[in-house]
């Protein structure tokens, strides 16, 4: 696909084609380096530059607020974006093209883990420095990461396996409460659970255990849906999962020991940016591994034709069970992180509204695609943050956008595309030289 696009770009005339040609052949590594340079620039030169061009502050979400709220400052914001982001990234990526290609090539000679870690390290570096400018960015990023995990895990059921599951907020709630009870009970003094049972210093180390605990509880809950899914599919299963969501919510409201409708607060502050990032990467990595293995592709076989799958030795029950429990596990982990980011949970959060949000992200981004889920989660999270200045009209614009996407790309922006880590990191051949 990628090659085809490039080849296509070669032929197209005009500014767009020229632009494409100009930037073709830059590996992901090159772009990452560019981004890193840009964020470092922003970090050190952002404030002086802002003073010089008369902005109040560094535009926090690429100037969205300024564009929508203070049209007079748009030129300033544009200058800032150009000087800090567009030009440095473009220049570094383009000028370093040969170098980064060579570097990427050299890295690929190591076992796959090495280039993967290098790329992730660079990505994290860029994100970290970018977010260092403002706590608001940190929070937005954390919640975006949570959204990625949620969307991706729901895509396992709704996209890869083709069921319409409505229970995801329920799984998330189970995970959030599971992990919260774990950490609050063990490490924090609280109105409901009293003094911590373990020394607080252990907390950050056992936090992963807490998240896994939450994930496992969510997995257990998923059995309630997985078992009926052996006998029924489609709409009826959608209703079962919806009923499950109502049940979970009502159950938590009735559980006094976790605070009932008042919610549970006092989660220790363990969910810092690196932790959230690492868990998100883990989630993407494991889910991607799974859906690319033959065992995982059995989900697609079950979706496209269950009878045929069965006849081709695919254990469909096991497949469904694994899919539901696996997706629920990650929803649970995401819930646990969510609870520790906000440091408060209440059952009201995990209702229909959350469901609509996650569903929208999955279908907007694209079914059956890791790329799609990441795109959907990131773009909708950032969009709903960036459009904040529109106030209530935001809730006209975002739905409208989604409707348009559904009409013109019914399976979402990037659907049915495999996420091949190796391909992503590979050096790109330089076509400019060939032409």
């Amino acid at each position, binding site marked *: 696909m990628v090659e085809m696009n490039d080849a296509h770009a070669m032929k197209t005339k005009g500014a767009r084609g020229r632009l494409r040609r100009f930037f073709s052949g830059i590996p992901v590594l090159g772009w990452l380096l560019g981004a890193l340079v840009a964020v470092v620039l922003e970090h050190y030169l952002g404030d002086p530059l802002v003073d010089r061009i008369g902005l109040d502050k560094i535009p926090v979400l690429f100037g969205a607020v300024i564009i929508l709220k203070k049209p007079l400052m748009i030129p300033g914001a544009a200058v800032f974006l150009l000087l800090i982001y567009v030009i440095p990234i473009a220049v570094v990526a383009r000028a370093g093209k040969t170098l980064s290609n060579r570097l990427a090539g050299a890295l690929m000679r190591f076992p796959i883990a090495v280039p993967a870690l290098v790329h992730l390290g660079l990505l994290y570096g860029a994100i970290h420095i970018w977010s260092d400018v403002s706590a608001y960015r940190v929070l937005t990023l954390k919640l975006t990461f949570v959204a990625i995990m949620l969307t991706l895990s729901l895509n396992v059921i*709704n996209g890869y396996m*083709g*069921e*319409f599951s409505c229970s995801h907020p329920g799984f998330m709630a189970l995970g959030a409460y599971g992990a919260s009870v774990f950490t609050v009970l063990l490490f924090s003094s609280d109105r409901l659970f009293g003094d911590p049972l373990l020394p607080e210093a252990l907390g950050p180390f056992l936090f992963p255990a807490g998240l896994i605990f939450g994930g496992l509880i969510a997995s257990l809950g998923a059995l*309630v849906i997985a*078992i*009926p899914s052996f*006998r*029924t*599919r*489609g*709409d*009826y299963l*959608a*209703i*079962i999962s*919806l*009923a*499950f969501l*109502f*049940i979970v*919510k*009502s*159950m938590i*409201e*009735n559980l006094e020991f976790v605070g009932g409708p008042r919610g549970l607060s006092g989660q220790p502050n363990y969910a810092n940016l690196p932790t959230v990032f690492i868990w998100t990467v883990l989630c993407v990595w494991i889910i991607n591994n799974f859906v690319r293995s033959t065992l995982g592709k059995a989900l697609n076989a079950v*979706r496209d034709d269950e009878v045929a799958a069965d006849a081709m030795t695919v254990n469909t029950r096991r497949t469904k069970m694994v899919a539901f429990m696996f997706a629920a596990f990650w929803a649970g982990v995401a819930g646990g992180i969510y609870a520790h980011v906000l440091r408060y949970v209440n059952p009201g959060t995990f209702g*229909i509204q959350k469901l*609509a949000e996650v*569903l*929208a992200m999955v*279908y*907007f981004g694209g*079914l059956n695609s890791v790329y799609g889920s990441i795109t959907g989660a990131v773009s909708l999270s950032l969009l709903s943050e960036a459009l904040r200045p529109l106030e*209530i*009209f935001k*809730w*006209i614009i*975002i*739905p*409208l956008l*989604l*409707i348009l996407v*559904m*009409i013109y790309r*019914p*399976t*979402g922006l990037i659907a049915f595309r495999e996420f091949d880590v190796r391909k992503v990191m590979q050096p790109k051949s330089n076509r400019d030289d060939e032409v």
Partner: protein
Amino acid sequence: MVFFFQNLVNALQWGSFYAMIALGYSMVYSILMLFNFAHGDIFMVGAYIGFGVATALVTLSASGFLALPGWMILVLTILLSMFLTSFVGMIVERVGYRPLRDAPRASAAITGLMIGIMLETGNLILLGARRVSFPPLIESVTYNVGGVFVTNKKIMIVLISLGFMLALHLFVQKTRYGMAMRAMAFDYVVVPLLGIPINTIARLTFAIGSALAAVAGILFGLAYPVLDPYMGIVFGWKAFVAAILGGRGSIMGATLAGFLMGFIEIFVAMVFPSTLRDLIAYSIILLILVFRPHGFFGEPYSARLRL
């Protein structure tokens, strides 16, 4: 015993709302194979249109220009609102569903959700955050029948909704449009091959579903006279449950399941501590579906039921 009958009366009224909304859901769902997640919000719009029409008529009547009795206003309100709301339904169909008829059904579900959000937000923008109070069109009279309290409104609501359900049933069974709808529910691709305009039928389906939602909205306004822009969400989703619980393509099924939902909610609260109502009520529904995996009148899942 009195207590039981009291709750029975209550459940009948409550169930008729679920049934009415589930019917509209079921129409679109079975005929076009789409989840119309905007239906709950069309119910909301219907209630607001009803509110607008009723208020206008009451004012008109009070001004002496056109003195109408309460029941007359009610009848006019229902008819006018059905008419107006059916247009809303048709617009929703045209904008949100027709372009997606051949898309995966889940995409249409998302569109529906989004249209719903737009309707809610639109209401909020237009009318502000105030909740409005539905005018009491008829004087409420309470009858005490051996300790069971029944109001004239309750009787009227149950009767009107049963009447509309019967009318719908007859329409679908006896008229050629109804026949075309049933045919479309079975296999819509070949419907145009018989000279039946598919878009007309789809529009009609949405129009009827929305008109029913408007009736439900007005009756709801009479029984529970507080309207707010988000009133349709929970109702919509629960009616969605009822529509599918009834079984695909079954008007009887949707009606029964709607009443069943109402009965479950009321009677669970009657027997068990009411804090556990949702927990128990939805566990019951979940169990029903586990043991009757295709709803009451539905067929086993076929390839067409896929998303």
